């Protein structure tokens, strides 16, 4: 497994470079928005990656609640952290895109609001992880993750209805997409997913090492003869 990481790293770097080239140069220029539209190739794949990571967090949390498997807990932590990073990218690239195209940085439309609330829920999860000092943090965090994930459909549904009642222009709305653009979009998504996987893997190893070190320290303090513990 150790050898796979650098190989995958090189492959991901190549993929990301290719995706970057395709996004900035290779993809056809959009008719109305011009080159500003190219941020779309970062905005959308980041969103999809974030959603997948949050879903993984939910799965890992449920697994932890059922089986108390420590690896599941680390996966939950890692996927939440990396998911929040990608969600932040979405929330930053969105306004950057919106400003030249629609003249405003932010609006409380359906998609933006839902993404912001999703971000808030998972940031609160990370706060619990950070601030909880009990040895049972994984259990509490897993419970919170389940509640948060269950909240997501309510968030989307309620904001959808809210915006149906009080309509606003939909930002980055649907419509068909040029197949060449779709191709570039999917390449970027693949590159981002590989990158996310690498970061998660690296973070997982880091967290596992940290826990092993803490465990070893604790064991040493327990087993050391009295008087010799610093």
């Amino acid at each position, binding site marked *: 497994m150790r050898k796979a990481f650098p190989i995958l790293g090189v492959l991901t770097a190549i993929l990301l470079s290719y995706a970057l080239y395709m996004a900035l140069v290779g993809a056809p220029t959009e008719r109305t928005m011009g080159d500003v539209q190219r941020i779309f190739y970062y905005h959308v794949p980041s969103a999809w990656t974030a959603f997948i990571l949050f879903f993984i967090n939910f799965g890992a949390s449920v697994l932890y609640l059922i089986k108390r498997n420590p690896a599941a807990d680390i996966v939950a932590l890692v996927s939440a952290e990396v998911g929040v990073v990608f969600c932040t990218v979405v929330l930053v690239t969105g306004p950057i895109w919106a400003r030249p195209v629609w003249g405003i940085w932010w609006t409380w439309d359906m998609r933006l609001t839902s993404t912001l609330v999703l971000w*808030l829920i998972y940031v609160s999860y990370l706060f619990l992880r950070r601030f909880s000092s009990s040895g049972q943090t994984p259990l509490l965090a897993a419970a919170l993750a389940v509640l948060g994930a269950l909240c997501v459909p309510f968030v989307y549904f309620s904001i959808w209805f809210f915006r149906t009642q009080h309509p606003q222009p939909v930002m980055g709305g649907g419509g068909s997409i040029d197949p060449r653009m779709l191709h570039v979009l999917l390449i970027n998504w693949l590159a981002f997913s590989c990158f996310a996987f690498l970061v998660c893997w690296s973070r997982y190893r880091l967290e596992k090492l940290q826990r092993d070190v803490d465990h070893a320290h604790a064991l040493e303090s327990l087993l050391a003869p009295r008087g010799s513990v610093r």
Partner: protein
Amino acid sequence: MTAPTGITRVTLLKDLRLEWRSKDAINSMLFFSLLVVVVFSFSFDPSAEESRQIAGGLIWVAFLFAAVVALNQTWARELRNQVLDAYRVSPAPANSLFIAKTLGNFIFVTVLEALMTPLFVVFYRLRALGPAWQLLLVAVLGTWALVVNGTFFAAMSLRTRSREIMLPLLLFPISIPALLAMVQSTTAILNGEGARFWIVLLVTYDLVFTTVCLLLFETVLNAE
């Protein structure tokens, strides 16, 4: 008296009795709410027409902050007297304690709402254009949504650093759909529009989250 309902009743009555004698929570909630209303009044000086649009939001923000005050002290007494350890060791089901605490908080916040609502009506010259009984329904459902999640998160925050700030940090994001529903339904009823979707959403939210909190509370209590 080891039946679950017996335990719930005993715990609830104990909390109510203690609160009735000291009136700590209700006094602090009431005063805090009043202060929030006064500060709001510095920013808004609405006509009767405008106030119908914004009052829903203002009322629920004030109640939300007041509920946080109540929720923060939910488990404080138990923590001080090692009651939770005793409870964990006993064969009593954890859910009885949870329901008792939630009902206690629900009663406190409802009393607060009953006292504050006339004040809001007077300050903002409110008059409901829609059926006022629906406002009662929204109040009950909305308060339950806040209180059931809040009691659960209060138990979760017990062993965190900065316990008092942890509760709102956890509660507010998860409560956003319910808050949206509360505010929108109140505004709709005040303006004589339909609030059925929001009320149904609140009912669904309450059912789902009460169930999940009941399922997970034992885990959280023992994790503590």
